[in-house]
Every structure is written in structure tokens, then in C-alpha cells.
């Protein structure tokens, strides 16, 4: 099979598949496309799309590959969707974040972190298949354990859970932000020229004096 033909078939498979295609599945359909060679072929496809200004790329999602439109085209595509666009509320995002990092875990454990009841949120996440029941904890009462689904990776465009930032990275980010917040007021006071006529004590600023002089005359 010549390489162009092979790439065309790969493209067609990606286009026609309703869900991300794993390398194994592709290799089963096209034996000439081994798991080892696939990465290079995907890269070649993406390079071609980029060079010709196509509206989509092949993304690695949940252990498979999928064609996806570029984010900047969302406003036009939203018009095309029969269903209202996906909306995830603040409680839903917080609950998903906790489940993603601490799975599998019980509802009580999620509630301990969030400090509020999460029954309704969990139910809606289960319905949307972003969270699944992953068994029971073997303690009295056998509480249900929750975990994220493959669909979660698909919706958030993650190749695997390891793609999420580590909690240490998050903590560093928060620390940096806290440090910035301390520095900011001082920096602002220096940077802001006292051009606010009502408040500025601009006696020692000649230029400003001239300016306000010019304006009032």
C-alpha cells in the first residue's frame, strides 16, 4: 500500500469514527499501519492540516485519536448544534476536579473537601457520564466509590489523567499568585501617574502642573 493511500485511509477512519480511535483498533483495521508508525502518520496529517490552514487537527484523547475543530471556530459551530452547548457549573467543575485527583472516593469525601452537599451535582455528573460508579469501599455501609470516565477525558480533551497539572504545580501557582498580590499595590502606586485631578497630590510634578494649568485655561 503506498504511503499516500495509507494516510488517506487513516484520515477517513478518523473522520468516520464516532469516538476516539485507539492505535490498536487502527492497526487491526489497517495492518499496514502499525502502532509504532502511527504517531508519525498523525504528526504528518497535522502538519498537512496546519500548512493548508485546515479547520481541524487530530488530537490524542483518552488513549485514542480524534479529529477536532479548532477552538477559535466555536462561535460558528455553536450555531450548528441542535442541543444547547455544554455547560458545566462551578459546583460541577469543583466536584469533577476533586474526583479526578482523588479517585476512587466516596461522596462523603468529596463533601468534606467542598464543605457542601454534592448529591445533586454527582447525580448530574453521573447522568452526563463524566463520573462513574467504581465499586464500593469495603467498610461498614459499603459506600459507593466514584471515579472519572473515559468520556471525562474526551470532553476535556485529555490524552490521560496524567495530563492534568499536578497538585504541587497548582500549589506553586497559588503561592506565586499570593506573592504577586502582595507586591502589586506597591507596584501600582509607583507606576500610576498622579493624573487624577481630584485625588492626586501633584505639587512636585511639574509636567502635571503644566498640564492641569493648560486644561483650566
Amino acid at each position, binding site marked *: 500500500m503506498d504511503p499516500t493511500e495509507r494516510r488517506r485511509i487513516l484520515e477517513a477512519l478518523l473522520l468516520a469514527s464516532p469516538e476516539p480511535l485507539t492505535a490498536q483498533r487502527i492497526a487491526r483495521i489497517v495492518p499496514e499501519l502499525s502502532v509504532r508508525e502511527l504517531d508519525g502518520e498523525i504528526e504528518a496529517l497535522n502538519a498537512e492540516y496546519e500548512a493548508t490552514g485546515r479547520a481541524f487537527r487530530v488530537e490524542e484523547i483518552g488513549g485514542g485519536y480524534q479529529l477536532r475543530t479548532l477552538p477559535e471556530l466555536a462561535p460558528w459551530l455553536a450555531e450548528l448544534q441542535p442541543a444547547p452547548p455544554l455547560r458545566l457549573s462551578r459546583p460541577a467543575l469543583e466536584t469533577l476536579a476533586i474526583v479526578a485527583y482523588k479517585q476512587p472516593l466516596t461522596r462523603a469525601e468529596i463533601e468534606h473537601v467542598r464543605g*457542601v452537599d454534592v448529591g445533586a451535582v454527582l447525580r448530574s455528573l453521573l447522568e452526563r457520564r463524566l463520573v462513574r460508579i467504581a465499586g464500593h469501599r469495603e467498610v461498614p455501609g459499603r459506600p459507593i466509590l466514584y471515579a472519572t470516565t473515559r468520556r471525562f477525558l474526551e470532553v476535556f480533551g485529555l490524552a490521560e489523567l496524567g495530563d492534568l497539572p499536578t497538585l504541587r504545580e497548582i500549589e506553586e501557582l497559588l503561592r506565586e499568585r499570593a506573592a504577586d498580590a502582595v507586591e502589586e499595590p506597591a507596584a501600582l502606586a509607583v507606576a500610576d501617574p498622579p493624573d487624577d485631578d481630584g485625588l492626586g497630590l501633584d505639587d512636585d510634578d511639574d509636567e502635571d502642573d503644566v498640564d492641569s494649568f493648560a486644561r483650566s485655561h
Partner: protein
Amino acid sequence: MPSADAEAQAPAFEPIADGRSACQVRLTLFEGPLDLLLHLIRENELEITDLPVAQVATQYLEYLDVLRELHLDVAAEYLVMAATLAWIKSRMLLPADSELGEAEEIDPRAELIARLLEYQRFKEVADQLGRLPLLGRDVFAPPGVELEPPAEGEREIEVGLLELVEALRRTLRQARASEAMHEVVTEAVTVRERMVAVIDALEQSEVVELDALLCGPDGRSSRSLVVATFLAILELARTAALRIYQSLDASGAPRGPIRVRRVAPAPA
């Protein structure tokens, strides 16, 4: 507890003094007591790790008062936190127990501080998740070709009970053969467990052959595993989570492997 810098602290809510209406109140909605506490800490530029509980508790209660004045229901969680804050505050007022050395003194705030730090982390993660390009909001994937059964002849039909039982019998026979090895390992298999396993298998690929499902993940099977899996599949079929198919041959009789297919959930 009045403190010197009391005026410097901006309250979490403030009447809008624009002269239009005296009873307009700017209210920020919070995700819960921890969220409210984090907000108070940020507003007052406090350190979570050195939380001035008395000061924060006063503002926290003021906030709950405003909610009540507005005749809004204050969720029980907020009241539990108010009690926790009051408890910590009282503990901090008590003189240190001289019996205990200083090292053994446990900061009554420790647990609350740990929870606040933890919640702050996940709030940040939630922010980051929300900013990712979401499928169905920011990016879109091709819907794929309809996997409807093709025309006549090769059409898949829903399988009858007899064929299902036949498949079970066949797999059981194989299971018995492998049990002749006489491995004495008791494994408790529950139908519920197998339901989870079947769903997982169907998450991996949409269509799986029944025989492959009945065997365990490593191809080995025991009588109890096969029976539990079979019951799990029937239960899932009953709840319409999956469907069971078999092809028809030229004469219209069912033939070939029985396939189990995941039923696509209704679009969210």
C-alpha cells in the same frame, strides 16, 4: 473582639451608596462555607496559614445575618461552620494547658486551615478545567457514521433466549474443562462487580463478542465467573444499557457469534 484595624477591613457585602436605593445590597454568591471563608480571607489580605479566627468569625456571622435579613435560607452547612468557628475561637481564648508541653499543644485551627488550603487547591483546579477547550463547547468532533445495521442478509437481529443459553452452555463447558486443572482458589464474584466489568469492556470498544465477555479479562474463566457475568449481561440488557445481537444467514436463521453492543446514552 474589637481590633485596631477594624475599619480597614472591607465587609464581604456592602450597601451600594449611590443614592438610588437604600436597600440594595451587593451580594456575592458562594459555593459554601469554605468558599465564603476564602473570600473573607482574600478581602482582608490575610494568610490562611495564620488565620485570625476571631476576626474572620465576626465577619462570617455578619454575612449570615445579611442572608437572614434578606429572608434567604441559610444552608445547614453554613451554620455548622459558624459553630466550628465559635468553638475554635473559644479554644483560642482558653489558657494553654500547663500540663502539656508547648510542642504537644495542638493548634485548634489546624484542621480548618488544612481544609481551607485543600479547598483552595481544588478551586484552582476547577478554574483550570473550566478553561480547557471543552468538547461540545469549544471544540467539536465529527459525529461519525451511523452504526445502523446494514441492509438485508447481513442484518443483525436481536438474539433469542435459546441462543443466549446455548452460548452460556458452551462457555460453561470450557470453564469446566479448565477447572479440571483443580486449582483450589476461592474467588467471590458478584454480579455487581461483573456489571461494572462488562460496562468497562464496552467503554473500551462498542461491540464485544458475548464469548469474549463471558471469559474473564485474562481469558480464564471459572463457573462462578461465567454465571455472574451472564447474569450481569442480562441485567444490563434489561435496563437497556446494552443490546445483544446475532447475524442472520442466507436462510434467515440466526448464525455466527453473538455480539453485545453498548447502547449510546441519550445526548446530555
